[in-house]
């Protein structure tokens, strides 16, 4: 996730994205229903710092917040 051009586009391949899907599924189960929100919040902070670009994070928050139901 080194490309920070102000969008959510990264160079992560679909195959890697699939691995992330599985890793997160297992991590959410490991955290358990009481703590999964806290786990995901911590993860977002860590990844936001790695991205190093506030605009990208703000755009991500907006996209994730849309169609939330």
């Amino acid at each position: 996730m080194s490309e920070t051009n102000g969008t959510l586009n990264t160079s992560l391949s679909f195959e890697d994205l699939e691995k992330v899907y599985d890793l997160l599924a297992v991590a959410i189960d490991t955290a358990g229903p009481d703590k999964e929100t806290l786990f995901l919040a911590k993860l977002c902070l860590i990844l936001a710092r790695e991205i190093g670009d506030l605009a990208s994070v703000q755009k991500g928050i907006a996209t994730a917040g849309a169609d939330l139901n």
Partner: protein
Amino acid sequence: MRPAGRGELESLYFSYPKFDFVRPPEMAGESDRHRVAVAGAGPVGLAAAIELARRGIRCVLLDEKDTLNNGSRAICVSRNSFETLQQLGVAARFENKALGWTRGRCYYRDKLIYRLEMPHSDQDRYLPMYNIQQQYIEQYLAERAAEFADMIDLRWQSAVTDVANGEGEVRLTVATPEGEYVLRSDYLLAADGAASRIRKTLGLRLAGENLPGRYVIADVRMDHDFPTERRSFFESEANPESTILVHRQPDDIWRVDWQLRPSEQADEAIAEDNVRARVQAILNMLGHAGPWELEWWSIYTANTLCLDDYRHGRVLFIGDAAHIVPIFGVRGLNNGFDDAMNAAWKLAYVLDGQAGEELLDSFTAERRGATLDVFRNAGKSSRFMTPPTRGYAVMRKAVLQLALTQEFARRFADPRQVVPYTYSGSPLTSYRHRDREFTGGIKAGSAAMNRKAGNGGFLLDYLGLGFKGLYFVERETIPSDILKLSGRLAAIDSNFSLLAISRKSLLQNAVTVIVDGEGRIFDAYAANDGSFYLLRPDRHVAARWLAARADEIEDALSTALSRGKG
């Protein structure tokens, strides 16, 4: 199950035949040993019997039923399977009846989020996928088998109840309406399905996982105007907590699958009134306002189970008898055909004396390898279709919601349809360092790709019974050392033949030449002047050379027949 008042074989559109029992020679005191017995006249057993017959090997095909398919209900037949059906000489019958398709649509909360487009071009002889009911699949194969009347001894109402794997032969106990008899055979192909009695008789067990998630599948007849496409619905209004699949079949029959909620009881879910209510809700969602009739329904759970070894002495397991796979990705029937072809050509070479019994050792390596690959892919599909835990359920919801607006998330909804397995690690595949000299083309171990032939038809129309050498040539003539090589290869495999692919017409009497004026075959195979592909009888590439090397090609053919260094 059928609606109340209709018998198990009372279909709205299909007339089930009734096959008589005929007393076999064994019941008149004869005890001649057969070369191959095939147990189970489903699609897989029938395909194996036809392939053996085509190769001049007689067999006895036994089935306990007195009619065609009344069990599983496969509907999707892949392009690769059509290429197999073409080899079996029965593809035209299928093509006339089946509904071909290339596209699919995936909906989340009844909004379109993904458009599936399967690879297809005018260079392909067949479409990527066809829908046809299993009854027709079996009917057409049984008709084809009947054309080999002197080669295939098809015995209905004959159940294999016991098997003894002995030295030099296998002895079957066959139960018939007129009593039992013993049948002796050199080999047995066990194609007796998911509940294989032969598997149990030999004390073998399937190992693997039972996946969560139960589906009801129902066939309905209705006049419904929608193209032949795969439609999948997540969190639809018609089944808010779980998924729905819809497929079109010939004769105005539509297949509807819906997942049961964890709280639903199976016996309630399959009660006729509940099935009708659920189908009506789904049809309302599809916008079908007209009448419909219920044809048949059933319930299933997804499993990834297989035998540790597909060969036990003189018994080879093929199809569902060897492995049970989830339906997502349509791999049950299609992989079963591949099992049948793999087992049949190898057995034929062993029985012909052109290969030793060691050739059969590669059957498990290749076909169990294919099963495990299916498990990896179908496992992913199943985890998406039926999330096994809360974590997977959250992730699926996340990508489905994102897919409404975000392109990157849409591919998660791809159904991961079946693709032929690559036998790259097989003991029959050789010269991998030559394989790596290519940039592109068809990798060693992969299934050959069909392309248009300039002088009519398609590349795969030119396959024969044996191994095939594809020699790519850009000069005026085929070099004499290649012609000599062809003769030496025919000494190893009497059915071997050479096929030259040339950009222009060649004056060459001894060799069949495909004129590839537009270079489509050259491109697909990443070939240039002097390139050589060695194709197995089942269309897989045994080995390939960017520049043909006679000594290596001869050796590769011996290796592909498990004959060791030539």
